[in-house]
């Protein structure tokens, strides 16, 4: 039988012809096929008896809209393979699933299905692998519809006949020249495709990983007023914007990979980031700087592209971004996510450059090793200090080159605590980064400041200087009382103590001091931090206040 191509557009037009010896099949690509019940069509019938199986294969693609600069370029839209997604074949007559497979790395699939049977091919926006490791279950769902359904793309119900056949399915973007007026079928598959790239990177360093389940929630209804921004929820969900003409992220792999990096960090590494809004160029709490710098660098590693691009605006024709390889960092240092991302990417990539003192090409394995080991086990807060200290220990032959790389960002790593760091961002109150306190020696003149906030009239709890960090190692197991005192009635310190069981928050409104007790284990090093509520909420003046921290 000669091949006959029948290209079916999304018109919903139903064309029924007889099966058996005829190559023309039913054509219906509307999302709710004629005669369907519960979304699974039942009206069509081949009028013949199934006598065996045929091979049904095909290619699944989605329309990808690439970037031109930081904006989306719809004129350059192309068909990309939908890799690793779930393909199902349904017997339309009895509403049963007859075969399931995942597309390969080129978007191809092959199924054995009954002949002379009305079959519909469905592509699920899910990458699922079970059984022997590695395992994963990533799916794209609609968080704005009841029960958070997973997105699927349906082909037509069509009789299989008695010979093998091919069904190629493409998810269209829905763009019709100036806006998305048609269904944005491609979006969930574009999102998954970035996750596919992420999986491939991770499998190079751990080929038997068991990825925790993750739902990626996307909808055209996901706007800045509904979900705020694209983000990882700290557990098992990533939310992505889809609000056309304001901010969409389905075609921003940079953003998707960044958030997926946070998912990996949460489940396989550790983060002490305190969150909050962050902007490029910020001088941040070092924990936020490391977490976000890692996200940006990891995004570029996944995509093998140093350019981070985030489109937005009317017709997605504007955007912002940066190049983690070539960007000039304003205010470089341990508090800069830009410095962190440049360092991590330079450690990874094969492009060396003298400007950044980059002579290294370590690849991802050494980075992953630190993430899943020392980042979890060492006591200091997550920061560039903790990461680099462990990396140097693990790679002593590269220690000098690593030091040169971080020195180029005005960072100096002696240990995981940043001891001896001389870069104070122009404010002596932010170093030393940690103060160590003992039962015999209080830490005095320990200061917090709002000097690094983003402008008057704002509140920026996650910027450099707002929090100060301390370390304490109890000599014996027992209860210890901590006192943070200004020595006067001024100030209102609040503290967070990272105990054996979690983060304990102490927020009394007592003027000038905060006093609390903890049951501690001998020999273990504990971390605590404090801020000043009055400084935190002072939006009119720049203010610095210093305290003495004692323990008994």
């Amino acid at each position, binding site marked *: *039988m000669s091949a006959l191509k*029948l290209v*079916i557009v*999304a018109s919903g037009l139903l064309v029924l012809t007889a099966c058996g010896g005829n*190559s023309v099949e039913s054509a219906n*690509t*509307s*999302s709710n096929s004629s005669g369907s019940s519960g*979304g*699974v069509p039942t009206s069509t019938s081949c009028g013949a008896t199934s006598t065996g199986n045929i091979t049904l294969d095909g290619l699944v693609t989605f329309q990808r809209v690439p970037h031109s600069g*930081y904006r989306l370029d719809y004129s350059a839209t192309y068909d990309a393979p939908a890799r690793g997604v779930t393909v199902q074949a349904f017997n339309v007559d009895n509403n*049963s699933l007859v075969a399931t497979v995942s597309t390969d790395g080129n978007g191809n699939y092959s199924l054995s299905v009954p002949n002379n049977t009305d079959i519909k091919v469905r592509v699920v926006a899910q990458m699922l692998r079970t059984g022997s490791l590695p395992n994963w279950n990533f799916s794209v769902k*609609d968080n704005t*519809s*009841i029960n958070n*359904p*997973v*997105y*699927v*793309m*349906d*082909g037509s119900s*069509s009789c299989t006949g008695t*010979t093998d056949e091919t*069904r190629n399915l493409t998810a269209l973007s829905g763009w019709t020249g100036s806006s998305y007026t048609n*269904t*944005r079928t491609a979006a969930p598959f574009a999102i998954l495709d970035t996750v596919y790239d992420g999986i491939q990177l991770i499998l190079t360093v751990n080929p038997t990983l068991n990825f925790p389940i993750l739902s990626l929630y996307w*909808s*055209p209804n996901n706007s800045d*007023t509904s*979900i*705020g921004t694209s*983000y990882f929820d*700290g557990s098992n969900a990533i*939310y992505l914007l889809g609000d056309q003409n*304001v901010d969409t*992220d389905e075609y921003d792999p940079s953003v998707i990979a960044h958030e997926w990096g*946070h998912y990996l960090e949460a489940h396989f590494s*550790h983060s002490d980031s*305190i*969150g909050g*809004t*962050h*902007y*490029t160029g910020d001088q941040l709490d070092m924990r936020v700087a490391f977490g976000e710098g890692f996200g940006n660098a990891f995004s570029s590693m996944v995509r093998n592209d140093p350019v981070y691009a985030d489109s937005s*605006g009317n017709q997605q024709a504007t*955007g*912002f971004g940066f190049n983690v390889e070539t960007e*000039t960092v304003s205010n470089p240092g341990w508090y800069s996510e830009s410095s962190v991302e440049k360092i991590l990417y330079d450690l990874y990539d094969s492009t060396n450059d003298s400007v950044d003192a980059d002579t290294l090409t370590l690849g991802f394995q050494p980075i992953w090793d630190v993430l899943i080991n020392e980042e979890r086990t060492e006591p200091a807060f997550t920061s560039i200090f903790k990461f680099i200290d462990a990396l140097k220990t693990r790679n002593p032959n590269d220690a000098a080159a690593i030091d040169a790389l971080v020195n180029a960002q005005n960072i100096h790593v002696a240990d995981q605590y940043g001891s001896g760091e001389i870069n104070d961002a122009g404010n002596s109150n932010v170093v030393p980064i940690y103060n160590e306190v003992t039962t015999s020696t209080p830490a005095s003149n320990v200061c917090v400041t709002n000097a690094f906030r*983003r402008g008057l*009239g*704002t*509140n920026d709890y996650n910027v450099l200087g707002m929090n100060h960090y301390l370390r304490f190692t109890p000599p014996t197991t027992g209860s210890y009382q901590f006192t943070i005192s200004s020595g006067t009635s001024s100030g209102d310190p609040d503290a967070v103590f990272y*105990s054996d069981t979690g983060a304990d*928050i*102490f*927020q009394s*409104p007592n003027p000038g001091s905060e006093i609390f007790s903890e049951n501690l284990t001998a020999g273990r090093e504990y971390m605590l931090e404090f801020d000043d509520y009055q400084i*935190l*909420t002072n939006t009119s003046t720049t203010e610095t206040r210093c305290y003495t921290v004692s323990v008994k």
Partner: protein
Amino acid sequence: MMRIQRYMVKGVFMNHFVMISLLSSLTALSGCHEKPIHNATTQSTSVQVASQHTAAPGKPRAPVRIEYQLSKDIQLGIPVIIHLSITPLVDAQQINLHYRTEGDLTSGDPQSQFSFGPTPARTTVQQDITVIAQAEGRFRVILSVTIASHSGHAGSRSMSIPIVVGNPPPTTLKPQGTMSTDPQGNPVIVTPAQEEIIKH
């Protein structure tokens, strides 16, 4: 001793600082972990949170902070001024602001684009815009701010300001496809494929 945990939901700060901090409120809406803050009227607070102190800051933002304040409640047919505060976080060679309105919310300004000259980092520029509601409903003002830095790099940020006029019913969200369930009973949302069938 009463123990209360309060998070820095920026609605509180809206009261404290009058200026609506949209960025911050959005962060709160997004479910991000915000820094705990105590209520100054309570005696003491002490809470425990998960040891895995993972937070969700969200994606990186272009280096410009945008805040707004409405001059008064929006009423049908009455012009309302929206005070915009734009703060570049890097030295800006130029700042361009463009806005547009949706639906029956119209602009009351002769122009919808504004430009500002060189602006040092963390310095706020102000711009008032005027909108008029022609009907009751839920509308948005869409802002787009582009920063051109001294190094020649530009970055844009878009955001929306929700405007509610009267007491309109809640917005009905339109799903992307057809709601259904698969044979296993799992909820799915069905979207159409472009399909090519080849008989061998």
